[in-house]
């Protein structure tokens, strides 16, 4: 390696978006940027969406049936996206697989691949159990069809493959599916919580970072994960229902040929009830999350250990707008008021969920970026400037566009998954 490295001016990772002030150590930059903000945010959405779907499957909250199935499909679409920001932020993305090959379990991120894969298997199994009957029916329908085109042939093959050879759709078999599904969902809840609590542990266990190091971090992360997951599911559910209503009115797609398709009024009625109940759960978890976050803050302020001087300046002065106005004000208190005031409507709840999502995103941002906003010397500060217009691959990956790419991917995936496993499938008979 000697002599091969050019000795000219060059940019260090993180320099493009870090502004240093007062005394910061020479090697300090904001190394963990927007992608690491996206990582707990997306993981939280996955975990939260799954927990919402489990409320129906495990606890049998019948009124959440439709939104539960939607959440399950959506959490499957979100799954690969939880991995994406991690890969995008790695300096050696092609070596990412080493984490699975030579895991060091003394590291908090070593087990991520395994927890994540386990969780992925659980979600996939549950989905398969829910949709097996549909797969068999569709495959049989397609098989019975005369003069199939190429696309129909392919679809027939796909659905036949998806049944995994289990063609029995007698009532007993389907009943067994439901039982297995319930068990999977039961295992899934602790795994989902572990997946995200563990993301919190990754930060909470960094002893060098005065803001991150707190045993409350995993719990705070779990609560805010459920909040964000439920909020996103409500929001997407409402939006998708609006699209369906629109299509029902215009009589396009399904509504053009299928006489049994739900009418506008049916859609409206179903939507109202499900959203109201889901938003109740949203509020419970919001209270829990907020309580823990405030507890953490009060504790730091009261104990006033060595790091408090610099933390106070970051929290109360430099990041005041981001923390108290954007995160707590706009992201917690305002949506809570919107939902808690009497005469709650779907529209009001929808607005609240958007604010909640924003609030949870800001919480991730304030933890990840805020934790790097001060120097380890406790005598200097670092400011983060999100790269908006990328001028190289690094500023794309760790800039606004990279974050938007990550945020948009689950919707694209959902579109395709929905083609195979329709999230709004009407079943004839009750399942529980």
């Amino acid at each position, binding site marked *: 390696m000697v002599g091969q490295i050019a000795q000219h001016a060059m940019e260090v990772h993180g320099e493009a978006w870090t502004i240093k002030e007062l005394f910061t150590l020479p090697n300090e930059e904001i190394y963990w940027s927007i992608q690491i903000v996206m990582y707990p945010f997306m993981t939280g959405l996955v975990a939260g969406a799954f927990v919402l779907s489990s409320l129906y499957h495990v606890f049998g909250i019948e009124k959440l049936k439709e939104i539960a199935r939607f959440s399950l499909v959506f959490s499957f679409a979100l799954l690969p996206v939880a991995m994406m920001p991690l890969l995008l932020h790695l300096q050696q993305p092609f070596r990412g697989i080493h984490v699975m090959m*030579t895991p060091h379990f003394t590291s908090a991120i070593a087990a991520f691949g395994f927890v994540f894969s386990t969780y992925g298997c659980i979600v996939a199994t549950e989905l398969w159990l829910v949709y097996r009957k549909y797969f068999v029916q569709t495959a049989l329908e397609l098989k019975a069809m005369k003069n199939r085109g190429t696309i129909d042939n392919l679809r027939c093959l796909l659905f036949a493959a998806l049944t995994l050879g289990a063609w029995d759709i007698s009532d007993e078999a389907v009943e067994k599916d439901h039982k297995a599904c319930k068990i999977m969902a039961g295992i899934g809840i602790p795994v989902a919580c572990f997946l995200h609590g563990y993301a919190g542990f990754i930060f909470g266990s960094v002893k060098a970072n005065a803001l991150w190091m707190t045993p409350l971090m995993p719990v705070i992360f779990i609560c805010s994960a459920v909040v964000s997951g439920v909020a996103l599911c409500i929001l997407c559910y409402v939006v998708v229902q609006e699209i369906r209503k629109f299509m029902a009115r215009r009589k396009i797609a399904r509504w053009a040929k299928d006489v049994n398709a739900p009418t506008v009024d049916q859609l409206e009625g179903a939507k109202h009830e499900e959203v109201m109940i889901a938003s109740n759960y949203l509020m419970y978890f919001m209270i829990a999350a907020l309580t823990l976050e405030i507890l953490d803050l009060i504790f730091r302020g009261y104990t006033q250990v060595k790091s408090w001087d610099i933390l106070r300046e970051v929290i109360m002065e430099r990041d005041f707008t981001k923390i108290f106005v954007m995160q707590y004000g706009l992201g917690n208190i305002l949506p809570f008021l919107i939902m808690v005031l009497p005469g709650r409507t779907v529209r009001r709840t929808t607005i609240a969920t958007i604010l909640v999502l924003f609030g949870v995103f800001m919480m991730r941002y304030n933890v990840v970026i805020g934790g790097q906003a001060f120097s380890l010397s406790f005598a200097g500060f670092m400011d983060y400037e999100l790269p908006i217009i990328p001028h190289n691959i690094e500023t794309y990956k760790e800039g606004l566009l990279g974050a938007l790419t990550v945020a948009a991917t689950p919707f694209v995936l959902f579109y395709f998954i929905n083609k195979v496993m329709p999230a709004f499938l009407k079943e004839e008979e009750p399942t529980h």
Partner: protein
Amino acid sequence: MERRDFLKKCIMVIAGASVPLSALTLVDPKKVLAANPSIQWAFLVDTTKCVGCGFCVKACKTENDIPLNANVTRTWVERYVYTKDDRRYVDSPKGALDGYTDARIDLGKGEFKEIDKDNVGKAFFVPKLCNHCASPACTQVCPVGATYKADNGVVLVDRKWCIGCGYCIMACPYAARFFHPVLKVADKCTFCYHRLSKGLDSACVNACPFGARKMGNIHDKNDPITQIIMNERVGVLKDEFGTKPQAFYIGLAQEVR
């Protein structure tokens, strides 16, 4: 159960429980040897001798192929200036690669603080580098085992195995780690491992004209550096993190963190 039986069983349980678990584990000779190797490197910084010339930084960067103009460095020198009206200023422009040729303090963002010559009270320089901790936070958090502590105490990075996640950089309380701007892997001071294994001093120790930097084997009681560490009042940086740093400092001040 009779009282006699009960007492008998109680005694058995107590006797069994009092055997410590460690007495039952097999001794691994390799582990015992590794715990007590003949060489264990430690660093000694005498801050009272440092004049802030920055030759160590330049030598380190040249020796270890860290681009001179990139704003990362394996070792650096900090300047502490206390004024008579009790204000404290610290800076380390470019890690003191070019030494301190300006009396003004670098405040970042292109701002400089002029300090009146007569107002300067206490002022000194502190060289810093990786502490090669006895229980390093960085090796603990590496998810792939790309960074490790060698038997002779040096913490190294496997450049072919590092995935560049940055967790070790975050975990280090001393900001001794960074991403190599060319190789895109985590990088840090190696105590000039290649020089040590050839019987040479590390590049910074070699370059220091004032003897502010020294290295020794703390498992050798006769080593002059070990003698200083054992007999004089030395301190370490940020011991509250429990990392047990192996870089010892003479003449530390409370503001030096």
